[in-house]
């Protein structure tokens, strides 16, 4: 058991489950279950207790080299310290926003930051168009530029109430209130059952001992 605990402590970004539970909607048991998931994800390519971009891509797309605009945005938002990797603490805190019990305001804000591609504090029309193009490309749906412009225009004019050519946080909040399904993917129902999917074997020593 000594090896297991000291290994945990050495992993950069590891935080005590009790601390994380206090600051997120997760219980201590759920944080420990998340640690099991984290271990799996963070050791898939580089066994260093950190989730690298390729490991994240591997988990999401089953392809470590798959590039995706939206996955990049999620990765960057999870990587709070901006050091190119997702640490355990960052992982839990970010996933906390996706918990069914997390406040809608947090989910709305996270979505805003996600779509604010260049982090200017606004979702510009070009950013919206870029995202639509990325989605169409990803789904192998081909639409003419005219049609794409119509889709972007329609949405943009509805969201950009002030008509200043960009969507700010306030306009986004109002838009989400009108269309709650916009933040549907900001909730992961599985998080409530995480302890069933990843039972945390706190006492487990079989695998851990062999690692340095």
């Amino acid at each position, binding site marked *: 058991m000594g090896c297991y605990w000291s290994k945990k402590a050495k992993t950069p970004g590891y935080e005590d489950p009790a601390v994380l539970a206090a600051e997120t909607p997760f219980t201590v048991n759920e944080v420990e279950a998340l640690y099991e998931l984290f271990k799996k994800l963070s050791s898939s390519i580089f066994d260093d207790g950190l989730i690298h971009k390729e490991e994240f891509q591997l988990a999401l797309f089953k392809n470590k080299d798959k590039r995706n605009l939206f996955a990049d945005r999620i990765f960057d938002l999870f990587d709070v310290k901006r050091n190119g990797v997702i640490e355990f603490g960052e992982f839990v805190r970010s996933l906390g926003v996706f918990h069914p019990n997390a406040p809608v305001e947090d989910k709305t804000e996270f979505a805003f930051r996600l779509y604010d591609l260049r982090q200017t504090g606004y979702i510009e029309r070009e950013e919206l168009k870029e995202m639509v193009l990325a989605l169409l490309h990803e789904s192998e749906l081909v639409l003419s530029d005219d049609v794409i412009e119509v889709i*972007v225009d329609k949405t943009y004019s509805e969201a950009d109430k002030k008509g200043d050519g960009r969507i700010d946080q306030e306009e986004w909040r109002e838009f989400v209130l009108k269309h709650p399904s916009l933040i549907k993917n900001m909730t992961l129902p599985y998080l409530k059952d995480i302890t069933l999917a990843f039972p945390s074997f706190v006492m487990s020593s079989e695998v851990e001992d062999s690692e340095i």
Partner: protein
Amino acid sequence: MNAFELISMSKGLNLGNLFDVEQEFKRETRFTSKCPANEIIHKIEEAAKPLGFDVHKKNYKLRLENMKAGRKGNLNVATEIFQVAPSLHMVEVRKAKGDTLEFHKFYKNLSTCLEDVVWKTEEDMQEK
């Protein structure tokens, strides 16, 4: 369907995949169609009735209910049609109640009947 709803369908934004949810037994799926919405609705109705499903329509939403009870009660399926562009519709088919495996079987039957309506299935839309 607005642009943000479209965007939110990206695989990169559906973190459920991190949890390795069994892809075959998903509770919801979607396909695109180039047919007009009314035709899609009509085809779904035509396909569902012989399979023993009761159909309730409201705007572009359909509720299909299996009149026979299955393993977990009567399978209840909700479908909704979204217009992405004038000539492109996205159809979402979701299990509302009942056994997921039965839903999966139902959807397989349904898609066979809808072959000429479906343009791209969800698998088609996921780049290799």
